[in-house]
């Protein structure tokens, strides 16, 4: 059986752990298979869970979150017959039985940034991150580049919710940040903040501005108020990995960008009226260019800074 280990946020984090769970769920429903799962409670359980699942014969062992890269690296050597897959992680060298799946979040964020800039009437848009970590800056950086691509004079206001894990579950602060950004003129806000994002989207809807969801399709939360959602198809990654089972390819990086439909923007009935054809065309064009390599969105990781936004 495959095993799935959720990061500390817990499997219902309204974010990528939840997406991973949905992917696994879909696989289970379609194949009738079963999978092992655990929600971590502490840092020390990372290795513990990896080893326990490996020892019990689970294969592949899928982990979500960059924090798993290091423990997976440490454990993999002891279980050569088990395959380990980590989503979001990065390692200088990837062991033979480990596969790292990375998403080009900045590309997806770039597209929703473009949409934000086009939907904005004030020329000011907002970004609200959860905990201040590089990954979230990475989201914000792609977003800002997209905004600037459409409107070089646009202002991007970026805020982080906090510096502790509590920043992922503080919708009240998310609301307050949203209001603060609205006071500064923002009329589209992009939330990459887990449970805090619930507050952001809510307040945006209450205050009658547009918001952008993250990770999974959150358009339905406030129909007609959520411009789009930046999709990060963790569910697909997990689904595919589980489907390959023990034969999953390992020993390298899988990069899921726009080309692979690993990231993207969500369109459905809930936001159909908000997205004009013009927007769609522009975004589609940019998408093609990014895929073809004609357009390069700079990743925050490239040199730990962002050309379009100063954190």
């Amino acid at each position, binding site marked *: 059986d495959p095993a799935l280990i959720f990061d500390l946020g817990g499997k219902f984090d309204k974010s990528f752990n939840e997406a991973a769970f949905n992917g696994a769920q879909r696989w289970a429903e379609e194949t009738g298979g079963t999978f092992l799962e655990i929600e971590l409670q502490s840092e020390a359980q990372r290795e513990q869970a990896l080893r326990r699942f490996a020892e019990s014969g689970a294969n592949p062992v899928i982990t979500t979150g960059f924090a798993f890269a290091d423990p997976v690296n440490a454990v993999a050597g002891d279980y050569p017959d088990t395959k380990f897959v980590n989503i979001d992680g990065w390692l200088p060298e990837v062991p033979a039985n480990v596969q790292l799946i990375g998403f080009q979040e900045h590309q997806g964020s770039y597209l929703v940034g473009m949409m934000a800039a086009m939907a904005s009437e004030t020329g000011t848009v907002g970004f609200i991150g959860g905990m201040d970590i590089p990954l979230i800056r990475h989201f914000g950086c792609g977003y800002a580049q997209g905004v600037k691509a459409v409107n070089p004079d646009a202002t991007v206001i970026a805020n982080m919710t*906090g510096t502790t894990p509590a920043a992922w579950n503080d919708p009240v*602060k998310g609301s*307050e940040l949203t209001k603060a950004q609205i006071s500064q003129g923002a009329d589209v806000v992009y939330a990459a903040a887990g449970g805090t994002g619930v507050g952001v989207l809510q307040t945006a809807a209450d205050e009658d501005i547009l918001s952008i969801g993250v990770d999974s399709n959150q358009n339905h939360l406030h129909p007609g108020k959520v411009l789009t959602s930046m999709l990060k198809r963790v569910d697909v990654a997990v689904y595919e990995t589980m489907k390959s089972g023990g034969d999953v390819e390992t020993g390298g990086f899988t990069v899921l960008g726009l080309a692979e439909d690993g990231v993207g923007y969500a369109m459905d009935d809930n936001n159909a009226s908000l997205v004009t054809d013009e927007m769609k065309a522009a975004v589609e064009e940019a998408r093609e260019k990014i895929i073809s390599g004609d357009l390069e969105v700079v990743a925050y990781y490239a040199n730990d800074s962002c050309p379009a936004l100063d954190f």
Partner: protein
Amino acid sequence: MDFLTVIQLLDSTVRLATPLLLACLAGLFSERAGIFDIGLEGKMLAAAFFSAAVAALTGSVWVGLLAGIGASVALSLLHGLASITFRGNQLISGVAINFLAAGLTVLIAQDWFSQGGRTPSLMGGARFEPITLPFADALADVPFLGPVYAELISGHSILVYLAFLTVPVTWWVLFRTRFGLRLRAVGENPAAVDTAGVSVIGLRYAAVVICGVLCGIAGAYLSTALQAGFVKDMSAGRGFIALAALIFAKWRPWHALYATLLFGLFGALETRQDVITAVIGIKVQGQVLGALPYVMTVIILAGFVGKAIPPRAGGQPYVKER
């Protein structure tokens, strides 16, 4: 920094201060009666969940509010059982209540709604809506006072007004009524109350229940007024900040208002990097901004507040015979 920005900043201050204020006054009642309560956080969280959950189920925010208060009071009574009846350690009991609330809320939420420890989004009558005070729109254009009235004073949920009203009421109850006199006495010297023929246990339970009611309102405010539903751990440490505010306020109602407004202001400033940049002239780094409220608190505490003396019998169970 223009006038409107100031108004917005203060508006945000009021919203952020309200849950702190309610929790702080809750703690004030309890601690004035000699029962230390580090379980404010847990009670607020439990109330946030139950008010949102019941509001979602019934569609009525008022029923939800009652349920939130009920849950908070239940935890208060547990605290009372441990620290009043069984003379246990009040700090431990408080710690336990925080854990209990953190665990139970998600467990029950998952059991009831299967939405990953969240409640469904509240809509319509299941939520406290902002209230527009009379003439707010008409007066909005009056210079200075207009915006203050329309933007700052008007447009909050009823619980905000309730919270601010609680300050004078608390003051009045504590210092102008028989109950208040006895309550303060029991926190200073329970033996004096006992020998005066008044039940120490009864008074302390009453205080703890009031604490529960106020924490309940604070929690309901979070999930049904500021937000439209419950998210796990959504109290996010506000109970502890309220506790700090209580010490800051030296256990006095009006000072509690000032202290929580100050914390609210710090919180509001944290969301307005632009204002801070404008005021001090340089752009502050994100993490520095995040630490600012806490650094400011320490500075103010060290510079201006001086020694805070808690109620003398605080934290100790009343034991006559050993």
